[in-house]
């Protein structure tokens, strides 16, 4: 079957089974490899993308549930929050292995769009669903705070 979605602003026709998860459409069909496979069951957050602006786990998002949707991946995300988050992630040197960080950046960006000046507890709550096996968690918190501060000025 063919499904129409918009990916990073580009209208795209995908020919695949309807139960194929968006994760594998992005990675294997569109070669947008910034979105990562970590668990396949929405436990880790490495596959986080924006679906119509909301952070969502692409590994459990079947293609037939998102016909007509607007998908944003790490390759396409922009705007002041995204730029602030990516700049903070680089400056704070959050990443160690880096594999989970696309998902962390997507989650943080969506969060700051909703909550530009969060409390520390709100930051931890927002980022708690994204696993990092390197345990970069304290730098993740620092980077979200730094991005928030950068947006304020």
């Amino acid at each position, binding site marked *: 079957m063919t499904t129409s979605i918009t990916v990073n602003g580009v209208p795209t026709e995908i020919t695949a089974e309807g139960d194929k998860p968006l994760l594998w459409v992005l990675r294997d069909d569109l070669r947008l490899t910034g979105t*990562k496979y970590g668990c396949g069951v929405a436990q880790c957050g490495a596959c986080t993308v924006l679906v119509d602006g909301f952070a969502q786990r692409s590994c459990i998002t079947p293609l037939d549930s998102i016909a007509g949707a607007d998908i944003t*991946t790490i390759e396409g995300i922009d705007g002041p929050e995204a730029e602030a988050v990516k700049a903070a992630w680089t400056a704070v040197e959050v990443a160690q292995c880096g594999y989970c960080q*696309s998902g962390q950046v997507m989650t943080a960006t969506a969060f700051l769009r909703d909550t530009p000046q969060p409390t520390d507890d709100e930051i931890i709550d927002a980022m708690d669903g994204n696993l990092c096996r390197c345990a970069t968690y304290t730098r993740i918190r620092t980077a979200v705070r730094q991005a928030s501060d950068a947006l304020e000025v």
Partner: protein
Amino acid sequence: MGHLKPNRRAFLAGSAGLVIAATIPLPGRANSGAAPFAPNAFVRIAPDSSVTVLVKHSELGQGTWTGLTTMVAEELDADWAQMRAENAPANVDLYANSIFGVQGTGGSTATPASWMPMRQAGAAARAMLVAAAAREWGVPATEIDVSAGIVSHSGLASNLSATFGDLVPLTADLVPPDEPVLKTPDQFVLIGHDVPRIDAPEKSNGTAIYGMDVFHDGMLTVAVARPPKFGAVVASFDPAPALEMPGVQRVAQIPSGIAVYADDTWAAFQGRDVLEITWDETAAETRSSEEIARVWAQAARTADAIAEDRGDVDAGFAQAAEVVEADFLLPYLSHAAMEPLDGVVELSQDSAEFWMGSQWQTSDQNEAAARFEFPPENIAINTTLTGGSFGRRTTADNHFTAELSEIAKAAGPGSYKLVWSREDDMRGGYYRPLTVHHMQGGLDADGNIVAWRNNVASQSLLAGSPFEQFITDGIDGSSVEGSRGLPYRLPNARVALATMDSPVPVLWWRAVGHTHTAYATEVFLDELLERGGKDRVQGRLDLLNADDAGRHRGVLERVADIADWQGLDAGNGIARGVALHKSFGSYVAMIADVSLDQDVPRVHKVWAAVDCGIPINPSIIQTQMAGGLGFGMSAAMFEEITLLEGGEVDQSNYDGYRILRNAEMPEVEISIIDSTVDPTGIGEPGTPPIAPAIGNALRALTGVSPRRLPFVPA
């Protein structure tokens, strides 16, 4: 990604010092004005002045790209902004780990094994650039200065300067110096300073390429159905249901199971899921992990392979006024790196090329050569970035490379990507061994330790592997490291080992034996100090008597200072625990503040002090300490692989195998000891001390040490 194949032995760093061979141009260099300057196997200077370091230790997240590149840049007097890094190709002649003798990353050796070779490579390149400038300008080399990537000469009549790129065309006939002069630590301008992490941008914007991200035209993606129990094998199978699935192209039996070849990852997983396979479980492990733990605990009591004997242990216990006993049980653990195992092979008639997060290139190369029956030089390995490893990407049996090779062999020339699912990873073995420590301690009437016994029961990591030769007198050192050679005055002490057998494959897991020995020794010691009425910090300080006691004392005093240690009670229901443990040549002490929230431990803050010699990049040391203790804390709190009755693994994903989340990560404060001693590794030493530090705090809260990990079982 770049696929450089240096065809010359530029130099080898050995005990005899630097050996320089004749300079032979890289292929094509004579005909190309844009060729880089390649003074040795590690450095490439391009006409645009960018300097690329070929890093011989895989970047697994621990920071080798930045650390090794810093060593080169320091001696080259380059500007940090012109530095680049990439993983070196597989070539044991050029890129052997100088500690292991083969190309591979592990044991926190990247820094110590590179400290001289990489600085020599940078210094040699600098000397050759200076020689080129001296000849071009007609001035003595001794009058030429290099600073921040600019080569210059200040004379009475003129000021001359050149970029590295300007000098590249003038280097063609230069010979590397025999003994490049190295800086002294007081001359360092990059080492010891926080140069920006070189891979931070690409790991912040999704462009970093991991093995999973490699695609070739016409490539098939493969998933493998493996036995549900360790040691089982395929009895029979029906490929038909898989072949009927959309996108599935082929099904083949390979030694490790049944391989499903498909157009993409999803199709491969779907096809694999509908295979009908009958397994032969004759040789399978069918015991539960509870049963295994019982057998190990029994064996620990009679462990008789002596790993260490100090004084007269029997006499020590005979004179003791009080004898304390404890059994500690530490479970099987999964590495659970975020990127599961994956890799791509392209097989031709007489050669094969791999793209994968190899951590042990020489073994992977030899394994593939043996499987394909090609000479090793016909196997190319492009090492990609890896989404973590923690030891998982190097195995004594090279099982992943073997499986990927067998997949290609079964299907013939072409491109194949093998992807392990998270479930494959979690249930696939290669765990940190389940281990039991049976401890006994004797105290005299004044509360001093007069006898110490540590009997360890564990599977061997080396038995049956190519490293079996390193087992001496029945002792696999990796089973007991961190339990012998303790820095404390333990006058009558014995460490003994019972090596256990099971078909469950076991593997080094970040910090290896120290992950269990540090817990058993530092918790038990803490109990004995408590029985003897000693302060946990001062009591340890009073016992330190090893040759390197000063460095142990340094980190312990530092951590007590930054945490403002006043004893166990930190107020507000918070108790403190302390632990000290040296591993991989680095010294670490930690203090953890812990409370109980409805019987669940909550770690509020951890202080750590580390002495890893000259601190090359303090920011990366900070991240490795925080990450290492987060990794160790995750295991201590939550992690456990269990085998059900019958032998199947109970956990299959992060829902059953809980790892530390952001909200559970404590605040961390780290202090790095200033040093002029040659640097040691930092990837692993942050992991061992955190579990005993938390365990000791929990005893202060509850009155009993947790004798079994994790603290919060599922």
